[in-house]
Structures are given as C-alpha cells and as structure tokens.
C-alpha cells in the first residue's frame, strides 16, 4: 500500500548543513529539504545515495550542493545555465554540470541515475540528461532512428528502451540490481533487460549532457532533482518517485 506522505518539519544533520551551505532562507524550501531527508531515511534510501541534487534555492550556488554530503561532489556549472525556483535549465548548446563523481572510483556496486524535469521537449539534436559513456539516461533521445526514453546502465551492449516519448515531463530512473537493468518513468517500469556487464568509464558523471571524455549531447531539459547512487529495487524506485513527487509538491513545482 502506498504511504501518504505529509510535510514534516524534521531536520538536523544533513538537512541543516545543506540549508546553511546553500543559503536557503525561504521557509517552504527549508521544509521541503527537511521533509526530503526525513523521507529518504524513512524509506531506507538515504544510505543508497552517493549524491542528491535537490536543485532548490534558485541560483547556481544553491543548486551546486549535494544534499547527501555538502563537502562532496559539489557541482561545477559550465556554459549556459539558467537558474530559477524551478531548478537548473541547461541551454542545449554548451551547458553541462560536472558532479565530480567519478563512476569508476565512486560507484562500486550496480547503480542508478535519476533526473526530474519540468521540461516537455527536446531539440532536433540528440540529448542526454545525465551520465557518462555506458551509463546514462535520456528522458527523450532523438537521433539514430529514436524518439524515445533511453538509457544505458553500465553496459556498452544493452540499450534500455522505454518507448516513444510524447511528453518528457516527470521523473526518470535507470537502475541495475541483480544483473537486471531497468528504466522507470513517472513510477512506471518502461523496460527491463538482463545485463551481466558492469562497465564504468573513468569519467565524472555530468548533468545536462554526458561525459564522453568531453561534454556532448547537450540537454535542454530543466533539472529539478537528480540522484546518483546504488542500484534500486522496484519497490525502492517506486518509493523514490513518491518521495520526490512529494518534495516537488511542497515546492509547488510538481508535474
């Protein structure tokens, strides 16, 4: 049964550290952060995260901080980003965000990537929203004959295909656990494939593009939340969706 989440003014620890580092003074945003931390802990997901980017605060500095640990994996925004209360919008031309999280060093278990966007659309040019070679997520990839939700999860051979996209607004997750890779969108499993490979290229994960040894395949979809971490079970992926949707609702920017 799905839990109905309430707004809880709970904090301390990482929530307060993030609020302080990011300079969050708005009380609604503070409540959203504290609720997010509380819910991630409550669902047993906090420990599975390596990086959590809440994209709250409305400016590059606030958006740069990692909620999981403000001293690790702080984003460096390069190129043309527009920061607002809705998150961080890459321009689809030269914008990318270096998380500093090197997959081959920091990710030792099957992993997940997630990306929440309020943007419906893509350009005519192929776009990847987060990732590196062999480990990436695109909420709407056009090119090579596709107009699809696509991902690779630590594999050069298995392409997860979530089907044709007509609206990219929402929350996408690619996750691998127990040699099965999956892609979810708005809490619906869109593809599942057996995949025994675990390839991590020696590159930092980028947001707003992918890291091919250089940034490429620029996205123009606004990032309103993103995570990098351990692989998630189906239940965990569903719970993460519920938590993030509640978080976005508190901020009045849910889709």
């Amino acid at each position, binding site marked *: 049964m799905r839990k109905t989440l309430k707004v809880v003014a709970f904090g301390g620890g990482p929530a307060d550290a993030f609020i302080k580092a990011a300079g969050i003074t708005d009380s609604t945003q503070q409540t959203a952060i504290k609720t997010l931390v509380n819910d991630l802990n409550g669902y047993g997901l906090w420990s599975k995260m390596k990086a959590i980017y809440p994209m709250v605060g409305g*400016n*590059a*500095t606030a*958006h*740069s901080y990692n909620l999981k640990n403000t001293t690790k994996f702080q*984003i*460096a*925004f*390069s*190129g*043309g*980003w*527009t920061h607002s209360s809705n998150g961080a919008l890459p*321009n689809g*031309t*030269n*914008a*990318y965000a270096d998380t500093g999280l090197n997959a081959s060093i920091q990710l030792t278990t099957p992993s997940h990537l997630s990306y929440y966007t309020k943007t419906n659309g893509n350009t005519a*040019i*192929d776009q*990847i929203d987060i990732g590196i*070679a*062999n480990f*990436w997520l695109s909420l709407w*990839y056009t*090119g*090579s004959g*596709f107009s699809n939700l*696509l991902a*690779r999860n630590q594999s050069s051979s298995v392409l997860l295909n979530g089907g044709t996209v007509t609206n990219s607004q929402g929350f996408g997750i690619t996750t691998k656990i127990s040699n099965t890779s999956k892609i979810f969108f708005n809490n619906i499993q869109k593809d599942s494939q057996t995949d025994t490979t675990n390839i991590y290229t020696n590159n930092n994960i980028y947001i707003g593009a*992918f890291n*091919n040894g250089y*940034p*490429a*395949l620029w996205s123009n979809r606004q990032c309103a939340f993103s995570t990098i971490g351990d692989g998630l079970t189906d239940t965990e992926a569903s719970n993460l969706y519920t938590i993030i949707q509640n978080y976005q609702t508190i901020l009045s920017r849910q889709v």
Partner: protein
Amino acid sequence: MIVYKLKSQDVDKVKGGQFAPDCYFNPVQDIDGNWIISIEELEGIQNPDFIFLTLKEDGEYINVTPIEYKPIPPPPMP
C-alpha cells in the same frame, strides 16, 4: 539561435573562467571553427575580469560578435 563569437586572443582567457559564483565559461567551437559562448554566459557575467566581454559601443558589442549558431554534428549515441 544567436551565440557570441569570441576574438581569438580571448579564447584562452575565457575557457574555464569563473564568470559568476559557481558558474564557469564553456566556449565551444561551431562548425566553422569559431569559438562561441552563449547569451546565458554573456548576460550572467559578474566577475570584473570578464566585464570587457559585455562592453558596447553605439549599442553593439565590441569584444564579441553575435552570430547564428551552426553546431558541429553530434557524436553517435554512446
């Protein structure tokens, strides 16, 4: 889309330069080999070291040139 072509002598100055808190330039080359930056970068400049890029004379930029963006073809799907 309009982007802003850098003068050749400014490219290395700009590459990776911090133009605002936690914001860094990322000039890229277009298909003609021009080094360009975006409107978001140009209009977001707060660092005095890069204010020169925004200087205008008679309403026209003097240190960057607006041009239509012609992107390099993207790499194949990874």
